[in-house]
């Protein structure tokens, strides 16, 4: 027996009936520790890796329905024409070397009592602990006229891959002087600064190739992430605040909240007055909810997201299931790739501790999000959090956004660091 297991065993015999620090008794499952991870994205891939890294004796199986992962973060650069979609494409070949089995099937059902996961095709996987990182699915019933079929014509591109390609092709095909509408959703949503970075990257493309074109953001929110910084960049680079501004932002108070869509007429209606905006390209980001598997397994609440214990990310609706990433209710952390990465490591620690009967480490959480206003202008938001009274709270005096009125050199450095963040997080996931 390794040192780890022996220590774990001693702890168990000493306090087998003791209730764990977070209210759930850590019951020994004896020999054979099986973990199933559903979802091989920003959360799941990392959870699988870090569980195996901490305790190679745990059997880890990753269930991911797609053979390739396309990173949505940095996909706005594809829309600008500055990056290929291929550079965002990742495979799962390296997982075998880490001793993780990858099954490319869709999980269709979870039985939390029997501790079983059913896959498309009928395979059943047993688990001692389950990590669920299913990402988001779209509420296609939220905006009249916007359906799943319509999304093939009006791409949200809020999951990267074919949707990203479709949107890029539409932007390329658009005539100079055309109009793009970006529909920005209400909070909470995947990637809060994303829609605004999208406007930047498209504006960057237009500025060079289609300078008479316009971008209109129809927003369900009165304010948005890094707003001051985006506004500063838009003003400096894209004429914001002038009659010739390439970007227009309409919050609900300026009739910006989308009420319905007429895809055939390429028209979006918004505001209390139901005003019409005709456009050449319409990229509405619809409201989201936790991924389908979480919905059908009874792991969500009325909000459509998954409530969890913030110390371990264990579902409050089912024991033995840890839910991380966009699908989880983890405010004050945003729904971001970095947050998923951070939560994955915490959940991994919780899973390993519970399987071995050892104490959970003190939770610590981080988020850093970069947005690229142009190839030379980067901005970021950072957050360091800790657990206070069962709630994730930003550590006072820390975190925040890039300083306003930074020098061009500083903004350029942030671009370098944004690209570094991407490469490192991708390596952490797929390396």
């Amino acid at each position, binding site marked *: 027996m390794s040192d780890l297991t022996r*220590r774990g065993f001693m702890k168990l015999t000493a306090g087998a009936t003791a209730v764990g620090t977070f209210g759930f008794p850590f019951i020994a499952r004896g020999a054979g520790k099986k973990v199933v991870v559903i979802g091989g994205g920003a959360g799941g891939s990392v959870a699988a890796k870090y569980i195996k890294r901490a305790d190679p004796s745990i059997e880890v199986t990753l269930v991911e329905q797609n053979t390739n992962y396309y990173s949505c973060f940095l996909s706005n650069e594809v829309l600008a024409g500055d990056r290929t979609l291929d550079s965002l494409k990742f495979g799962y070949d390296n997982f075998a070397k880490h001793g993780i089995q990858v099954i490319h099937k869709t999980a269709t059902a979870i039985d939390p009592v029997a501790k079983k996961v059913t896959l498309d095709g009928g395979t059943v996987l047993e688990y001692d602990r389950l990590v669920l990182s299913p990402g988001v699915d779209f509420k296609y019933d939220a905006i009249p006229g916007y359906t799943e079929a319509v999304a093939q014509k009006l791409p949200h591109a809020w999951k990267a891959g074919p949707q990203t390609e479709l949107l890029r092709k539409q932007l390329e095909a658009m005539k100079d002087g055309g109009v793009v509408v970006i529909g920005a959703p209400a909070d909470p949503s995947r990637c809060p600064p994303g829609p605004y970075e999208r406007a930047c990257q498209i504006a960057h493309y237009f500025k060079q190739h289609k300078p008479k074109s316009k971008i209109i953001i129809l927003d369900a929110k009165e304010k948005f992430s890094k707003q001051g910084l985006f506004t500063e960049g838009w003003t400096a680079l894209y004429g914001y605040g002038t009659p010739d501004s390439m970007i227009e932002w309409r919050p609900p108070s300026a009739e910006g909240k989308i009420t319905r869509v007429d895809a055939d007429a390429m028209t979006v209606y918004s505001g209390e007055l139901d005003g019409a905006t005709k456009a050449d390209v319409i990229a509405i980001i619809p409201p989201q909810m936790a991924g389908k598997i979480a919905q059908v397994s009874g792991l969500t609440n009325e909000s459509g997201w998954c409530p969890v214990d913030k110390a371990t990310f264990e579902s409050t609706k089912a024991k033995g299931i840890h839910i991380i990433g966009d699908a989880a209710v983890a405010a004050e952390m945003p729904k971001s790739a970095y947050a998923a990465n951070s939560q994955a490591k915490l959940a991994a620690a919780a899973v390993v501790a519970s399987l071995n009967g050892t*104490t959970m480490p003190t939770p610590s959480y981080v988020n850093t999000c970069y947005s690229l206003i142009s190839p030379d202008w980067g901005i970021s938001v950072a957050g360091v959090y800790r657990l206070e009274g069962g709630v994730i709270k930003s550590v006072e005096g820390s975190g925040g956004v890039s300083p306003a009125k930074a020098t061009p050199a500083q903004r350029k450095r942030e671009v370098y*660091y944004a690209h*570094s963040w991407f490469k*490192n997080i991708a390596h952490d996931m797929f*390396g």
Partner: protein
Amino acid sequence: MTRKMRSSWALTSALLVSTGVWAEGQSSSLLADTCAGCHGTNGSSVGPASPTIAGMSVETFLEAMKGYRTGTRPSTIMDRLTKGYTEEQIKEMAEYFSKQKFERFPQEVDAAKVKAGKKLADEHCERCHEDGGRKDEDGSGVLAGQWLPYLRFSMEDFQSGAREMPKKMKKAIESMVGEAGPGSIESVVQYYAGQK
């Protein structure tokens, strides 16, 4: 994904199990792991610019974090992050990263500049940045194999005065630039970045 990039992962299981880092109530691994998104798995960055922090001495780490926290060392984001940790947590991270291996990845460097840089570094930098910048002693940091853009940013900050240089370093650089011109800085950083 190159073989070299994969090795930082292969190393970890062995490292953790053998050194017993994963002990009960162990927070330092979790604390340090949250840095991987920018600084790489186990602190070895795959670039292009965010620095590798693996293998840094405790002294260098603590000095850097203190500098960021107090604003005496310029940063784009580290000031905001360091303020989120207690001194105790930072110490734990320093200990953790000091035990990680600095993994070097291939970088695009100019062979002529590297050659010139080696001569210059041997003469002007080696006394404090020993063993071609591999040895981290008295807060000298590990320069060998560090990401080129990061080395450039550091030198820009030193030369502008935004970041304070130790007196010995200031003298050495003045002497080097005096002899070999301002281009000598680029040669030296290329040399260090190119180290395997």
